[in-house]
């Protein structure tokens, strides 16, 4: 350990500065470029606000999915009941409310998920939100 420390100490100041600021500049440029690129890369399907109806321990969640692409997509939509830590209490596959799974370019489709396995404690203490997401985009039949 001491030998390693001595080596670090003996690196001249200029080499250290060059290496360090190289990392800083590269890191900043990469973070900015990657961040902007990722931010511009919008998801193919966007979801609206989840609407929840609870009947006893059964919760029915309805969500609107909108196709933002120029193609017809057939997504597999899932809805998760999550706690405050972002962990799943239950996850269900959502079904299209009307018709099939096809969503035309710029069109919307309503999906419904029913939760049967949430306990009273889950509802009272743990449940934070219902969240819909695209599990997979299937080739349309």
């Amino acid at each position, binding site marked *: *350990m*001491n030998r390693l*420390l001595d080596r*670090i*100490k003996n690196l001249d100041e200029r080499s*250290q*500065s060059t290496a*360090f*600021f190289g*990392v*800083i500049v590269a*890191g*900043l440029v*990469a*973070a*900015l470029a*990657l*961040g902007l690129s*990722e*931010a511009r*890369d919008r*998801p193919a399907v966007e979801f609206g606000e989840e609407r929840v109806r609870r009947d006893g321990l059964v919760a029915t969640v309805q969500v609107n999915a909108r196709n933002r692409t120029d193609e017809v997509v057939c997504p597999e939509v899932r809805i*998760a009941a*999550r706690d*405050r*830590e*972002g*962990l*799943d209490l239950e996850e269900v596959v959502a079904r299209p409310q009307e018709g099939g799974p096809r969503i035309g370019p710029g069109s919307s489709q309503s999906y419904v998920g029913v939760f049967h396995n949430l306990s009273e404690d889950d509802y*009272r*203490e*743990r*449940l*934070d939100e219902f*969240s819909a*997401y695209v*599990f997979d985009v299937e080739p349309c039949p």
Partner: protein
Amino acid sequence: MGSAGQSLDEEPTRSPADERPGAPATAVLDGRAGSLGHSVLAPSLTPRPAFQVTRRLVGVSKYPLGLLTAIYAINQSHQFLLPVLFPFIKQEFRLSDTALGLLGGSYLLMLTVGTVPFGILADRVRRTKVIAWGTSAWGVAMIYAGLAGSYVHLFVARTLLGVADPADNPTSQSLLADYYPVNQRARVMGIYEGGRLLGILALPIAGGMAEAWGWRATFFFFAMPGFVVAAMAWRLHEPERGIQDRRHQNLDGGIEESGYLRMSSWRAYAQVLRIPTFSVQLVSSGLANLFLGGVGVWAVTFMIRYHDVSVSGASVAIGLFAVGALVGSLSAGYVADFLTFRGLRASRVYVAAGGRIMATLLFIPAFVTGNLAMMLVLFTVGAAVLVAPAPALNAVRADVLHPHLRGRGNALDAVTQSLAAAVSPIVFGVLSDMVTLRSAFLVMTPVVGLAGLVLLLLGPPLYARDERRVLRAVSGDDDVDETVQTVSAPRETAAARAAAPDARSGGDGAGEDLLVLRDVDCSYGPLQVLFDVSLVVPRGRCVAILGPNGAGKTTLLKVVSGHVDPRAGSVVFDGRDIGGVPPDQRARLGITLMGGGRSTFPSLSVYENLWLGAFPYATDAARLVDERVDAVLDVFSALRPRLRQAAGTLSGGEQQMIALGRALVAGSELLLIDELSMGLAPIVTEELAQVVPDILDLGTTILVVEQSVPVALDIADEVYGMEKGSLRRLGTARSLRRKGGDRLARSLMTGEEEPSRRRRPPRSGGAGRTGRSSGSGRRRRRPLQAPASPRSGSRRGRKRSGGRGAGGS
């Protein structure tokens, strides 16, 4: 110069005799033309622009503290970031909850493992670079996390974050201990600890970003400030290790070498654990975190379960607790430092212990009550006092650890806290399953109290010993027997002396106290110079301190002027504790130090020297300054023809006149004179002493230290004797003169023979050398305000009649 008698453009006239430095002062002083009755010189008429008094050393910038706090906040942000991003990550990689939990575990593991080597680095290499590299590595790890194509990559990225994180905390604390004065450590640490709580701001920001741009972009954007602050940290000045500990003892420089640098890194770790105060605080912190970690996780569930609060409502309450914790962190440091200023040496330990005990007392009813509002209030206040120990204990660690061990000590503390906080939720969960959650809270709460009790019972005596040991070590006095304590007068006696009525105003009760010193200790390195010095200087009076060379008189003046920091005790000026206030600000408050010897700027002209007296108040009031300089020249008219002459070429008496004149231009509330008579012929001293009553008449208070007993008895109202750093009141000058004057005073001092030049035949009746200074008639008190008429001073008339032909004009 405006109204000055001679324009600066005119060539000053000078007789050949005057060309000689040290020319006969009588010739100079006989030229006195005016009086000090000028109202323009009165302190009450001196403009004192309002300003914020800060307790800092000159040259100490807040920038390093701000930057290191920001780095801490940024480094901590990913702790709050990840739970927000979990759902998005889970969706993309289709992870199980166990896999997500492992991400948290990998971080904790690496945090624990990584902290140990970084503690060594913090003690061995340049710390600013450790922080800079660590923070940039954090940025790289964040980018890597954003680029992760699989769970494995994400796992590695999270592990790297766990390595980069400990580069910051132990190292920053070590740096802060060397950036900021020892007396300000707790409050500095309080602000720094606030960074951890500021990291919580990442929560809403990350949530919004992830919703709008996705989890990867969130990682990328969060990495950017990391790189920026890393670059700034690289440029930070690296303070010498131990520099503040040495400055605390009025020693320069830092510590280059110590035995800790030569021993193996692991042995040094063992050495840290052998420091009793450190071990006690480590146990206390471990116990406290055994509660804190669980409360952090289970508090929301508790509120939902027992107070029927919604999840979102409970989350808002958690935010409230965080605000309480932030307030507690900031204020605890201030309280601890304030008490230290007041002379309570182990106040940092007491604040930490008190916080933990008080938190217990607040939390127990908070967990018992069924009233939500009461629970929220108790819990918020409890959170505030629960985090209060953190900054105080950070400061304690810095106080009791050698500067070459601080990185390792902080690392050990961080590891202990992390592990205890990690185990804590599990303990709460098990107890909750066994009984109830409320019972778990009630069972675990006393653990915090126990942590406080351990600190309270064991901490203070150990701290006093360990702190002294470090101070001696950094001052290069390692060999001093640790059991030897500084010999000092009993505190009660000294304090009582300061508070005793006869110590005030000569017993006549006139006026309020302008300056109060209580139990002041001061050292230069291992050498303690002042011992429990307590002193009261009433407003408008002249107090003289007599003592031989090396008694500590000058040090006492420097403590008042702020040039030397006391190790303990308080200095109260005009009702305000000015401990830690730098000298320039004390000058602006009205304290002027007239240094011993020829206290002028020799290369500057006489006018420039006088003008400098206006530094505390005037940058744009040239007319006012000139008016005051002119008033001074009316008194010291011998200076008027020499205005453009370099001060260093004047005689000793003339230079003292310049120094006195500068103090008058400053309009001092309190004038500190270090040996008016030093290096001057008695006749010159006598003439200068004649001005003192006039200065008092203006409303200025004077604290003068002298070796010459006659001079002290002549100019002072009260006389103190100082011997070997201890101060005792000898009596009023009048009573001392009555009892035998200087002979008596001298006998009360060291018994040392006065230098022959000061030995003069006793004057009849103990009278001064002028009629004006004889007996009780010497002083005729006036209101503190300057006289309305510049030349109506009664003393002046007596001086003229009894003086040595000072008639002049």
